[in-house]
């Protein structure tokens, strides 16, 4: 029998409680920056969870997952620019196009393995990146400002920050729950079986390709949703949204948080994006000291906060394969 009150589950519960109560804290203190940060964290957590569905459970290392962020975002941005602000049009279309893109990329890339698979997914993402760069009408490489968040009639008002925050939280939870159901379903068994031993899967009678393809499309649609939310959140889209380093960030989030569980990437997104905020100010005094001691100008050192992330990531990969979630699970088992 599994005990429910483990350190890991307590940690999950605490994180969920913090997320649920954060707007109250913000209302009391007026610190709206935290709310903006956590909205962003939850949105990118959806992307990381979706990536983990194919990467962690399906063994399909997509190095072009940020393309879906861009597709979702650009559908919202372009439609808004053309005067279509209804979310009932924007959102389904964004998800549909994300799914179709996933279908195309998957149909080609899933015929390959390993490095070739990674390269094909990267190539497709770069293609979309350069297409967005060339869209002069929609800002080209400068990007495009979105003046209004998606409108849902009188249903929900996304322009209200608290409403938008809770919508993102609800969608993240729905996403995690949905992926959890998928992973444990018959479909999920096939996906994980194919990761573990594709050849054997075919020998026992599974046409693995079509299952992997459907999984790839599901992940694309979920990440497209993340892109839709991101565009709404920042009122802005640009090709940078889908730069290949963004895809790398998503992989880091999933690995850092733990690929073995559905919830792991959420931890990863929280840790990664918090570090992104915390590390630069931490670096600043060291940089100043460095400048005083050596006379070399290091006033931009904080922009290279990822220099500190690198070693941290290395430690996780070398000593904590299961990521944050794995560490928590381990302590749960010991308890």
């Amino acid at each position, binding site marked *: 029998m599994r005990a429910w009150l483990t350190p890991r589950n307590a940690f999950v519960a605490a994180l969920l409680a913090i997320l649920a109560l954060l707007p109250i804290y913000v209302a009391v203190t007026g610190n709206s920056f935290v709310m903006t940060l956590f909205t962003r964290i939850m949105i990118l957590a959806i992307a990381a969870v979706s990536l983990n569905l194919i990467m962690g459970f399906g063994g399909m290392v997509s190095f072009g997952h940020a393309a879906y962020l861009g597709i979702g975002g650009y559908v919202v941005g372009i439609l808004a620019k053309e005067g279509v602000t209804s979310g009932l049009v924007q959102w389904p279309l964004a998800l549909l196009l994300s799914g179709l893109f996933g279908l195309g990329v998957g149909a080609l890339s899933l015929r390959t393995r390993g490095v070739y698979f990674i390269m094909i997914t990267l190539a497709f993402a770069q293609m979309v990146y350069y297409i967005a760069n060339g869209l002069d009408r929609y800002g080209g490489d400068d990007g495009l400002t979105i003046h209004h968040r998606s409108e849902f009639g009188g249903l929900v008002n996304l322009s209200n920050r608290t409403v938008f925050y809770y919508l993102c939280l609800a969608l993240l939870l729905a996403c995690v729950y949905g992926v959890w159901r*998928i992973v444990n379903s*018959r479909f*999920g068994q096939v996906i994980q079986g194919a990761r573990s*031993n594709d050849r*054997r899967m*075919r*020998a026992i009678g599974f046409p693995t390709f079509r*299952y992997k393809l459907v999984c790839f499309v599901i992940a694309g649609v979920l990440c497209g949703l993340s892109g839709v939310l991101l565009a709404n959140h920042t009122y802005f889209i640009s090709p940078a949204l889908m730069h290949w380093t963004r895809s790398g960030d998503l992989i880091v989030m999933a690995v850092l948080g733990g690929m073995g569980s559905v919830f792991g990437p959420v931890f990863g997104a929280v840790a990664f994006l918090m570090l992104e905020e915390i590390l630069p100010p931490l670096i600043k005094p060291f940089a100043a000291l460095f400048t005083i001691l050596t006379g070399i100008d290091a006033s931009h050192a904080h922009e290279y906060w990822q220099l500190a992330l690198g070693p941290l990531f290395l430690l996780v990969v070398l000593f904590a394969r299961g990521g944050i979630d794995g560490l928590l699970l381990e302590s749960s088992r010991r308890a």
Partner: protein
Amino acid sequence: MPEGLLEIEGLSKRFGGVVASDSISLSVPKGELHAIIGPNGAGKTTLIGQLAGELAPDAGRIRFDGQDVTALPTFRRSQLGLARSFQITSLFLDFTALDNVALAVQAHAGHSFHFWRDARREAALREPARAALARVGLAGRGDVLVSKMSHGEHRQLEIAMALATTPRMLLLDEPMAGMGPEESARIVKMLRELKRDLTILLIEHDMEAVFALADRITVLVYGRIIASDRPEAIRANQEVRQAYLGEQQAVQGVGHG
């Protein structure tokens, strides 16, 4: 003569200059345990690979239960009831034994586009899987991670996986590879039981097991069939003795002398 469950006709496969299958023709009637023996490199695994659909033959045809399956992909052949086990253990190491077998059951329980229900709680998958585990002597080991099981258990699990696909014919690629005498004896006993319900094509190096089990034996040397007959006849066949059994017989002769 009635058509066999498995009919192989003029099957040929070349790898560069090496002829791995040299127009092999073979008929395995329903209910037979047919063993294929031959020295290393005789093309036994290549033959199984072609029968299972992992390798495409250069020429020839394979018919299973009257249907031409030569061009069918692996998963389709499995769905028709042609199951294989692997010489080099090929399991889902990060799954439990029961999960492994349940997956094999699931492969033959309709399509798997079910996204919601917990597959590990579906009795329709778990019960047949448990039965298959029990059949190979692994009852009670279902919850053990495969990576934590012994080599002998892996071999048993290999067969349970093949069984769980409700096959009509088993292609067993050296099920006793790397096993001790005790474990081998257990597998022989198990195969003798399976033989009652299934047609089996068995590749095996363990001659004692082969001669104890087989209804017919085919001897493959350099991809070519040099003899295909009942065990007694194979034992007496001069060409076979020279090409393959000779060495062993000599050793046995010394032992008996």
